[in-house]
């Protein structure tokens, strides 16, 4: 099944104000600009690696708008640059991560886009697929036990993650305990080189929700407003004791998995070109201009400001030093640690 573009003839803003719609567009363009910058820096030999999430801009900007800063918890996966930006991560922090500088959240230890910020409610993750899903469930359990009403956990993963046993274990546990959590699957149809058809017997992740005893909903992952609406409804339900929801956003990965991957070896250029026609970023730009939410001039200004921000963040982060060799030994345990020699 392919994601169907939502009808542009009828503009459903789902209660979003002009400011919110523009904020979502800003996150989408910033997401793409920073990501493209990462690929460029890699080709320039300035950073060793960059990963791709082009095609995920809409679902991430939409879901981020449903996240309440200062209250909710985000347990993302590594392909969530836009979601991280949408809940308050700065371009500078992104560039510190790409450049692996000492002031990066992980101190230059982690791969790009593995952030950790208590202030943002953004959890630390590894790169192991679906390993974070149980952490999200544990955090949701803590919220419930602490009677922290009005707070919820949003956790994300790709379609490939749903094949992991731990993913099943975690979703099942959340259902048993009616936990305040939303499981958001960003189904981009590809797990590196493995297509959906080699990952599951039927292509709809959301349908599994019934088996767990929770609501399952699906949205067009190229439509940020639709993604916002389903995530908002699910988060509100979670915040008010209604338990978990499995949300699936059907999107697509336009680029190779990372700078170390070459998708020409496993999928046709025609397929990618066909899906590009629905590229959510220019589509949302057009929609907001057509609907008079922002003028063409304002859109140009927005893009110019994002480019300036990206340039500034790039230069500023590049000037920050690398971690020192002795930083290898810090913060393994609390307090001083004497490594075994």
């Amino acid at each position, binding site marked *: 099944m392919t994601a169907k573009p939502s009808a542009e003839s009828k503009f459903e803003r789902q209660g979003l104000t002009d400011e919110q719609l523009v904020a979502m567009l800003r996150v989408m363009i910033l997401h793409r600009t920073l990501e493209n910058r990462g690929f460029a820096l890699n080709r320039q030999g300035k950073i060793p690696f960059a990963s791709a999430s082009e095609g995920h801009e809409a679902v991430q900007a939409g879901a981020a708008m449903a996240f309440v800063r200062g209250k909710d918890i985000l347990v993302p996966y590594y392909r969530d640059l836009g979601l991280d930006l949408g809940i308050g991560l700065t371009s500078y922090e992104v560039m510190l991560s790409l450049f692996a500088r000492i002031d990066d959240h992980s101190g230059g230890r982690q791969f790009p886009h593995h952030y950790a910020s208590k202030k943002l409610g953004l959890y630390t993750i590894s790169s*192991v697929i679906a390993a974070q899903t*149980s952490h999200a*469930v544990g955090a949701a359990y803590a919220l419930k036990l602490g009677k922290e009403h009005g707070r919820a956990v949003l956790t994300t993963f790709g379609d490939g993650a749903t094949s992991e046993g731990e993913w099943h274990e975690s979703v099942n546990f959340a259902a048993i305990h009616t936990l305040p959590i939303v499981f958001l699957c960003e189904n981009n149809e590809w797990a590196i080189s493995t297509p959906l058809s080699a990952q599951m017997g039927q292509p709809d992740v959301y349908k599994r929700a019934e088996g767990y005893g929770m609501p399952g909903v699906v949205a067009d992952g190229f439509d940020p407003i639709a993604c916002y609406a389903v995530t908002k409804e699910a988060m509100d339900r979670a915040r008010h004791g209604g338990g978990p929801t499995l949300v699936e956003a059907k999107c697509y990965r336009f680029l190779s998995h990372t700078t170390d991957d070459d998708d020409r070896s496993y999928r046709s250029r025609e397929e990618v070109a066909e899906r590009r026609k629905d590229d959510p970023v220019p589509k949302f730009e057009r929609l907001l201009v057509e609907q008079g939410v922002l003028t063409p001039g304002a859109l140009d200004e927005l893009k110019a400001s994002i480019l300036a921000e990206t340039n500034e963040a790039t230069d500023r982060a590049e000037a920050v030093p690398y971690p020192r060799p002795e930083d290898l030994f810090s913060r393994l345990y609390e307090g001083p640690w004497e490594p075994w020699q």
Partner: protein
Amino acid sequence: MAVATSSSQVLNNVEAVRATLYEALKNDDKVVILGEDVGSRGNVFLITKDFVKEFGTERIIDTPIAEASIVGIAVGMAMEGLRPIAEIQFADFIYPSFNQIVGEAAKTRYRSNGEYTCPMVIRTPYGGGVRGALSHSVSVEALFYHVPGLKIVVPSFPADVKGLLNAAIDDPDPVLFLEHKKTYRLIKGEVPDGHYVIPIGKADVKKEGSQLSVVSYGLYVHWALEAANQLENEGMSVEVIDLRSVRPMDRTAILQSVRKTRKLLIIHEDNKFGGIGAEISAMVAEEALFDLDAPIRRLAAPDVPAMGYAMPLEEAYMSSPAKMADAMREMVKF
């Protein structure tokens, strides 16, 4: 022989674990226990019996049979400020949770540069001599002690169980707490009342001696003591060190003893290849080779997956006080 005093009581290891968990639940609302059959059944060894009546199903959580997420959920709880004590019903069932322990819990602080921490305990009964066969008898410490970021505790006496379990629960980092199931009811000892902590990473000299250092942990500490006492009657003086923790490991205590006795015998139930004894041997060889009067020797299990169910297979796998005494005699006389 342990004798209760007004400020202590005699407990076996099961009772020591139980009493310590109870106190922790009583003293800190953030402590929760999760695992298979820990609730209404009260754990398969009855360690948490009736806890659910006092602390409720929200804090004493009967989980689905899903070891990876038992640990993973505890990691998330810990990152969100709870003090989870996850139980793996038998150490033999810990393998599905390997990634959560090694890749997640042990790296939480490190990978977030201190932003998030993972203060949790994973308790699990391990070890043989109970007709546990291939899947209820294994030792798992060597699979985990390779991993920086973890702490691994293997107590053998009830008083150490309490002090070290308190330390593990208080610890700001993840601790794997291994309880030898044969010692659960077999080993009794005096346990001081009230809250006290024994620092993780400190070995304890259980018997002083001058002619040989024996380093061990778990059930085999008790058997080594039995053997050493027998040798005492034969006029030989053997020092027995209980490691109590295998990560961090008390290199100072090991080296101090070895430099005194000039001979080292390492005894463990886990198999020899790549076991705890390999690291100790290498460390002592690097640090104190020229202080030694005899080659280092390791008495450990054979290089097979685990002990068999049939009694002869279990006996062939396990050591014994007699086998230990033989090895000690040979070392002293070398």
